[in-house]
């Protein structure tokens, strides 16, 4: 008969209405700023620059090779190479970025910079509350704002961080072995903090 389905529908919505007052399980809403769901590990939004150790300038993994700048589809990365060199994460003397800017308002979170980086220097972050009252300056991040420690990376993406650490440790071992086989007495300067950090994770 006409109307049976409608009556059933009314009963169902009434059950939902009253049920939501009596059983909290029905309510799927998370009251966001106060309550938060645990972040899933695959979350990623904007890139950051990884550094080892305590000092972000000394431990900066980036060697200003500018591959990410060239690969970036929306061209939101701007890099200026330094004039001098400093030892990088594996101990070789390398350039470092004098300027490294990312315009977050242009970034499309594609992660291509992370894919192409041969130095494990740029990775994706999970920070998403980025609103600012200055839409130009506030969203153009320089290298100080972009730098985050390896410890932070291990916290947000533990699996990826472990893989990345393993690659760096292998390369560092290779560099050391090469130095030894060459019979050079002069040791390649390695940042002591980096070494200890890597060994502690493995």
């Amino acid at each position, binding site marked *: 008969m*006409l*109307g049976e389905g*409608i009556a059933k529908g009314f009963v169902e919505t009434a059950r939902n209405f009253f049920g939501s007052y009596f059983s909290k399980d029905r309510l799927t809403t998370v009251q966001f700023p106060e309550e938060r769901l645990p972040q899933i590990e695959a979350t990623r939004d904007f890139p950051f620059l990884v550094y080892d150790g305590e000092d972000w300038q000394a431990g900066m993994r980036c060697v200003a090779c500018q591959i990410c700048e060239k690969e970036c589809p929306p061209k939101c990365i701007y890099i200026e190479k330094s004039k001098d060199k400093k030892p990088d994460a594996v101990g070789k003397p390398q350039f470092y970025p004098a300027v490294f800017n990312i315009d977050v308002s242009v970034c499309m979170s594609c992660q291509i910079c992370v894919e192409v980086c041969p130095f494990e220097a740029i990775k994706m972050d999970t920070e998403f509350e980025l609103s600012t009252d200055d839409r130009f300056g506030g969203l153009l991040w320089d290298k100080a704002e972009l730098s985050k420690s390896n410890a932070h990376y291990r916290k947000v993406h533990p699996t990826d961080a472990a893989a990345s650490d393993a690659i760096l440790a292998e390369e560092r071992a290779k560099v050391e072995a090469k130095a030894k086989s060459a019979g050079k007495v002069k040791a390649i300067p390695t940042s002591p903090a980096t070494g200890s950090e890597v060994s502690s994770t493995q």
Partner: protein
Amino acid sequence: MGNAADQVFVILERWLVGHAPAELQPILSSLLSVIALLVVFASLFAITTILERKGLGRIQNRYGPNRVGPFGFLQPLADGIKSLTKEDIVPHAADKVVHFLAPVVLVVAAFSLYAVLPVGRNMVLANLDAGVLFFFAVGSVMELTIFMAGWSSQNKYSLLGAMRAIAQMISYEVPLILASVTVIMAAGSLSTVTIVEKQAGYSGILPHWFVFTPWGFAGFVLFMIAATAESNRSPFDLPEGESEIIAGYYTEYSGFKFALFFLGEYLGMFAISGLGITLFLGGWTAPLSFLTWVPSYLWFFAKLLAMIVIFIWVRGTLPRLRMDQLMNFAWRFMLPMALLDLVTAGIWHFLAHGIARWILCSLLVVVPYVLLGRGLTQGWKLEKRVYRFAE
């Protein structure tokens, strides 16, 4: 004491008007009533928006708005400030005058509807002899404003929405008025005040409301279905079906004009619910004879709130109809039911009181309902759709 509480607003108005010179008194009296109606129904609109959003939320197992003020009850205030401060954009190609007039005329027409609604004993702005006729005449101005909005916007979606609205409102006006004619026949008057007075008696403790007769019940259901369609509310919200035509006739409206459309729509809904209450639910009369000590206007607003709750419940339950379903329902179900209901009301009037009258008239309502319902649903055999490429 009960009488004093009942008439408190009437006495207050007379006292206030009494201070003015005699020639100004009629104007002042109307003015006071108009202000009271504006304030009361505009605040009812604010309360309804928040109740509706919270109610719909709970139906969908959400919280609904709960941030502004205690339990989110100041949300309408925030919405009002927001719509007042938003930019009012008028499309370059739009007919500026008509585009501006549409929401204004809509709200004016919606408020005019309340002139003939008795919200309490002796509490009606204008006791017209043709009150119901006035209501429907002004009600059709609202259809005109919707077409004005759709036409003047110079937007295909607006025009589509307006065309849908016109088709729908004209189709559903027929059963709406036919359902009201049953009551006009039974009461023998077009005056809303007289119609309420005819329902004011009691048999034992039960009231003489028209809804408690077989033809009255059918008429009430038909009236409310048609009223839902007339006020463009879900499941008959095709004119503003956002998944199909953006926002229908008010696609090109922003800022406070949009809020005026919203206001006009809700005012229309309250007014038509108020008419339904006046015609079928005994207006301001108490539902049981020993409850007559409660002031009459409280009963009217209690009934109005109950109707609003039903409107919200319907909106939370039923999905939007398709255009052909809408038209089929109007012309193949609502119209024959309303015509048969008219006959039933006449038979009820001329038969002697007793159980035979009840049985005959109930059969006259139930049998066509079943048969027409079957006829309506027969063409709707659902089949499993076969996809050529997707499978």
